[in-house]
């Protein structure tokens, strides 16, 4: 078992901060919350963190300013910024200031968790050739999917969705994440939820319906998850 990852959340909105803390703690992170830019700055300088979640709209000291100062001092910790501004300019400015990733509010907690996992994974070689859950197996080289030794015929999209779910095994995947990462559609206004629902339904028909144990679950209002237990 690896050591517990430490995450600093700099967020002034109390409810959001609380939700972030609980969401992260549920994933076994050690969470510290700072409610102002000053406090966040102080904590980063005095304690070691594996990842920083930084809100940009902060009282006293703007998030970008804090970030710029920290990067100038040579801080290497990955930083994920949260922003309500989602124009391209804002994103570019955030990334230019030294952010490693950004998330636009309102965001889904599952997506935030996925982004943090990705940031923490960074730098480690991640050459997975096979994905597996119970008797469901996916060979990324031959692009073959089997369950209980039985080969499943999946369409390209179904394969990609399943691969995405397997890569986020045990974690909920939101529709937004699928739209962006599997369908690669950046425009958030695109009506894609139905497409996702239909694709998931078909995937479920192929990988779950013929079998006793259900793996693909819908978490109503949140998204989908691949895991063994109940939905």
């Amino acid at each position, binding site marked *: 078992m690896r050591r517990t990852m430490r995450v600093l959340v700099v967020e002034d909105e109390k409810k959001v901060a609380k939700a972030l803390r609980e969401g992260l703690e549920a994933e076994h992170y050690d969470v510290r919350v700072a409610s102002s830019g000053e406090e966040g700055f102080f904590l980063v300088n005095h304690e070691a963190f594996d990842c920083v979640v930084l809100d940009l709209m902060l009282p006293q000291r703007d998030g970008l300013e804090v970030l710029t100062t920290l990067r100038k001092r040579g801080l290497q910790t990955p930083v994920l910024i949260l922003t309500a501004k989602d124009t391209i300019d804002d994103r570019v400015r955030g990334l230019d200031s030294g952010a490693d990733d950004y998330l636009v509010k309102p965001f889904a907690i599952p997506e935030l968790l996925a982004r943090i996992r990705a940031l923490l994974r960074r730098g480690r070689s991640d050459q997975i050739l096979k994905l597996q859950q119970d008797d469901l197996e996916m060979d990324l080289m031959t692009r073959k999917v089997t369950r209980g030794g039985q080969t499943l015929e999946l369409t390209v999209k179904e394969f990609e969705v399943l691969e995405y779910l397997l890569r986020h095994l045990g974690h909920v995947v939101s529709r937004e994440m699928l739209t962006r990462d599997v369908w690669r559609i950046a425009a958030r*206004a*695109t009506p894609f939820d139905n497409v996702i629902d239909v694709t998931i339904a078909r995937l479920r028909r192929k990988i779950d319906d013929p079998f006793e144990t259900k793996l693909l679950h819908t*978490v*109503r*209002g949140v998204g989908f998850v691949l895991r063994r237990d109940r939905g």
Partner: protein
Amino acid sequence: MRIAAPSVRTRLSLWHAGVLAIVICFFSAGTLLFVRARLYRALDEQIGQDLATIEKVYREETGDLGELDHRMGMTLFEVAEGQTVIYRTASWPPPATRPYRTRTSVDATHRISVARDETAVRQTLWTLAVVFAAGIPCALGLAMAGGYLLAGRVLAPVGAMAETARRITAESLSARLPVDNPRDEFGRLAGVFNETLSRLEAAFEQLRRFTADASHELRTPLTGIRSMGEVALQRSLTLQEYREVVASMLEEVDRLTRLVENLLLLTRAEAGRIPLTRTVVDLCELVVSVADSLRVLAEDKDQELTVQPLAPVTARCDASILRLGVTNLVYNAIKYTPNKGVIRVTATRSPAGEAVIEVQDTGPGIPTAHRERIFERFYRLDSARSRETGGIGLGLAIARWAVEANGGRIELESEEARGSLFRIVLPSS
């Protein structure tokens, strides 16, 4: 300190008077010069005649010069031969107290000088000058007063228009300026103003409707979330039931989020704050990829979704924005076409060289009454039904923006109960 610019009326009268003053001055000066020239010429002619008479009398009968003097009255003259004065009138040389005009005729032996009093001429000219000097200011004063009155009358409609326009505010945009004569300048001005008001009124009306619709659309999910939360807290629920409540709330939040995103997109688009990255795009490829991404929906409804023909058609546009527009059209076609229907998507080049994308369905069609407004935000044919199918009423508005932002236009042909045809026309690359 600067002097405030005088009113149009004052300026008009001043210009009018100024131009009139210049004209009158030139005219008066011309008249004076002309009269002066005429009077002096007449005097000179008289002097010439006198000279001729004197010369004649002198040559023929020298002795009668005295009688001539008597007869000529006011004319003074002197006849001299060399240094010897032969005759001179009593008051020769002419007295310096009065102006005289003198002329001398000299030949080898004698010299004849004639002088005539020109006081009368000078007096006439002086009188004329005085008349002008007194008359011109009077005339100018009258002209100015008249001009001022006239300008006032002519400009009165402008004042009335300004007064009416001032009373027109966002609340009373239906008011219009009175048009007395639509063909004169002021009538045309009022007409143009009224047209602007009409457009403004339409824009305000649209905005008002949009605000009402938007607040309705925003309130519906908010009400849902709130009442679900309230009801859930009133009773003791099982864990499973709480999960259900939270899940429904999240679904409403999802809807709210999507709505806000769509609204933001449209608002930004209208403010021109979405930058376009134009490249040469193969529309056929784009259409195929849109159709493929939505194909599962058509298959789910046993619909036939075809793309044809497969020859490349290029246009210069922002691929992702155009894609959003086409996606919305195809999505709508699938959504509103009943099971086993047919949706046909084509990308072709028109004879005029324009790139054309058509999305044709065998759905219920759009009644004529709705065709004009179908692209407006939140406009729905049947609000109850659409909300059930999960739409938020912005798809076509976004599609229209996506096409128009790329310099194209969107057209609709529809036959009730036979289907609709949405056509995107983009200028040739």
